[in-house]
């Protein structure tokens, strides 16, 4: 191996421009590849308060359609009634939380002079058992408090500081949308990248509209509720989905009296679908187009630099024809020549890869523009360090280096191994 390092250093000294260009080209392509990969992975890898992502399913939306010839339809979020009917007490589910899936901009006022805007969501007590928010002071609210819709809230650290100039505000009143609540607890700020669990204010909200039997209109099936399901480790998502499909059929028998039926759109959704944002109340998730574009992008990010590096390696090899000829003359086999060139080039690629990976990680952590969307525009979003730097990221980088090296080095290495030793030694 030491000999190979010496060879690389000699190579760079002998052809500094081509060696430098090779490393820059590799670093550039690994950088871009890793930025894309990290941005995609941050949406699905578990981190607090969504450490449960691998076991999380979300039930959202209901789509109803007329069974008569008009075929007219309605679709929206779930009411508590529908959410419970479709998702409560499923086999293989460890916990379920009924919560508002989207954040609402609310007007907040504490003891400080000015009121300010913050993002809130209504959640039940179970929410904090699924999503691991870190409590700084106070407690989370109880099942009884959320079920009774008591005016209690859990707020984030930064909200506490804005409203009270301090995090010691447990038990103090806070005005939200002109309604008085009591602060039960303060949690650490959460990244807006935790789309399902983040928020500045969590308002206790439970089954306050228990219309289990009496419906005034079809709109009672709809509301602003979603269900977070924490699936047991030994249970699989398909098993849960099959149960939900059976529940939809039960709902259909109930709806049939009014000539309505439900349209199933593959709920509940896993984190990959939730992160894709490629689903809606009246359409099924379809990741195929998104995956095609992503794979094409990854392909171009790999193939273009690989061709480039291959041309550069070809040039480097032509400078080393004498050396290869001598090695062949002394009995070095062709596979050995190929293996040596590929190994040597892999070290070259790895050097560029390390630079590219480091730059990619720094960029992914510092540039929040990578993660902005309509809901988070203008906010400073930084991903958790653990979501960016982890074994998965390193493995992807090494794999990309390996593939890049294999694509770029194989043809020049194969050509070099086919050289006639006599011609190679005589070559200038």
């Amino acid at each position: 191996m030491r000999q190979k390092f010496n060879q690389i250093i000699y190579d760079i000294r002998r052809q500094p421009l081509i060696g430098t260009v090779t490393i820059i080209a590799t670093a550039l392509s690994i950088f871009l590849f890793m930025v894309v990969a990290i941005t995609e992975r941050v949406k699905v890898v578990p981190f607090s308060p969504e450490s449960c992502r691998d076991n999380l399913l979300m039930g959202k939306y209901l789509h109803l359609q007329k069974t008569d010839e008009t075929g007219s339809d309605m679709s929206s979020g779930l009411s508590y009634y529908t959410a419970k009917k479709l998702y409560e007490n499923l086999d293989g589910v460890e916990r379920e939380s009924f919560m508002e899936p989207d954040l609402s901009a609310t007007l907040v006022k504490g003891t400080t002079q000015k009121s300010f805007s913050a993002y809130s969501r209504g959640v039940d007590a179970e929410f904090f058992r699924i999503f691991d928010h870190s409590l700084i002071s106070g407690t989370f609210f109880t099942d009884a408090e959320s079920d009774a819709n008591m005016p209690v809230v859990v707020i984030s650290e930064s909200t506490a500081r804005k409203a009270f100039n301090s995090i010691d505000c447990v038990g103090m009143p806070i005005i939200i949308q002109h309604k008085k609540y009591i602060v039960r607890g303060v949690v650490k700020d959460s990244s807006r990248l935790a789309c399902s669990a983040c928020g500045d204010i969590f308002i206790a909200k439970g089954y306050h509209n228990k219309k289990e039997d009496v419906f005034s209109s079809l709109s009672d099936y709809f509301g602003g509720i979603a269900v977070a399901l924490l699936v047991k480790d030994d249970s699989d998502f398909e098993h849960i989905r099959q149960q939900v499909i059976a529940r939809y059929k039960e709902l259909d028998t109930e709806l049939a009296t009014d000539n309505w039926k439900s349209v199933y759109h593959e709920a509940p959704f896993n984190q990959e679908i939730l992160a894709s944002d490629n689903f809606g109340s009246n359409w099924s998730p379809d990741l195929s187009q998104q995956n095609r574009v992503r794979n094409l992008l990854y392909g171009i990010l790999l193939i273009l630099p690989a061709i480039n590096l291959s041309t550069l390696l070809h040039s480097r090899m032509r400078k080393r024809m004498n050396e290869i000829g001598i090695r062949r003359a002394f009995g070095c086999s062709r596979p050995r020549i190929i293996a040596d060139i590929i190994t040597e080039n892999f070290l070259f690629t790895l050097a560029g890869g390390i630079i590219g990976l480091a730059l990619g990680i720094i960029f992914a952590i510092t540039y929040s523009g990578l993660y902005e969307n309509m809901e988070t525009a203008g906010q400073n979003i930084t991903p958790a360090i653990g979501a960016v730097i982890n074994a998965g990221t390193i493995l992807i980088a090494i794999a990309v280096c390996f593939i890049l090296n294999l694509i770029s080095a194989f043809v020049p290495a194969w050509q070099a191994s086919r050289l006639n030793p006599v011609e190679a030694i005589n070559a200038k």
Partner: protein
Amino acid sequence: MKRKLLNQMLNEWRPNIWLVLELVIVVCVLYALFSSLYSTYLIYNRSEGMELNDVYFASLNFIEEDNENHAPYDSIHSPETDYALLLANLRSNPYVEVVGGGSPNSLPYLYNYWGTQIEIPQKGDRTRLQYQVNKRQMSPDMLRVLRIHGVDGQSPDELAELIAKGDIIISDRDYHNDPSEAKVDDFLGKDVYFYKDSLQTHHVGAIAYGMRRSDFEPMWSGNLYMNINFSDIKYVGIRVKPGTGHLFAESLSESDMQVGNLYLSDLKSIEDMRYSAQIEKYQDIRNKIIFAVFVLMVIFLGFLGSFWFRTQQRASEIAIRKVSGASDRAIYTRFFGEGMILLAVSIVLALPLIYGLSKTEMPGGWTLDVTQTATAGICTVLILAILIVAGIYAPALKATRIDIAEVLKNE
């Protein structure tokens, strides 16, 4: 000389094939990126017919009766009187020009769509005239806030008077794919009714410019501007005097934002709304530009590395040329010519793929016409040519500066 150059390129066919293959991919990728960006620019650049600077919006909220802070109404006070007072307070602000109210669908940069159809029954067996519109309900003052103009030169004030007296105003749309479809002019001055509501007719008083949901989205259907009932008002729009936005926001006190049970929250400038509504499109444009730069960097480095090596390989040949009287310009021309021939071959090979791409629907449902396709293609070729010349320049410069005596001493 050209023949010799071609022969020399054929002798180096192996590395040249790699460069051509790389260029074919790059030509296709760059063409796809440039045509997509150009299509986006064409949509963005369409006339708006309204002025959206110096505008603020706030959502209008109501303290419900079950809230302990709710103030009961008497025979004098009502939500309507609260609203009138709230607007009067805002109008008295020295920085405010005009204040109006509207439904969520009356605002730009919210992706709401409230589709309906306006219809005119035709005589005899002829099919009724139908036209799809996005229903935007707003107070007359909201037309002044947004400064919506009529296509026949009507001012926002004239349009506001029209909807105040009960007329409706409609706009044209961006696409007219079906020649048999009703045109917006067919409805001007006519009494129309809304889809499935033939009891009430509405008079179309004017044709105005349409309000797009985003600067990057074409108008799929027309717009319908009509007066709003108080109970449907969910937003308040405020036009401030030019350049006084920050002063206005700072001058607002909490008493300005609340009257009785009505209060304003989430005050946002139109710039903030535009930014958050279009952030994903901005990111898309940014990503495409970054990707294009990456692809161009790859090509630049590829040509730099390859031609640097060729300069070393051809040192003796270049020296002999110089001894035979070749000028620096001739050496440059030879190197650049080699690059341009490689580019030309790549373009020819990429043409079938480019043709396929040119038939693809662009984002927003746009298809580029022949001129626009040619423009995107020319941009692709020009930028690539510049990058190739840049990549070859340093090796070519090196070639012109070789030490002839040193190079030829062993020959």
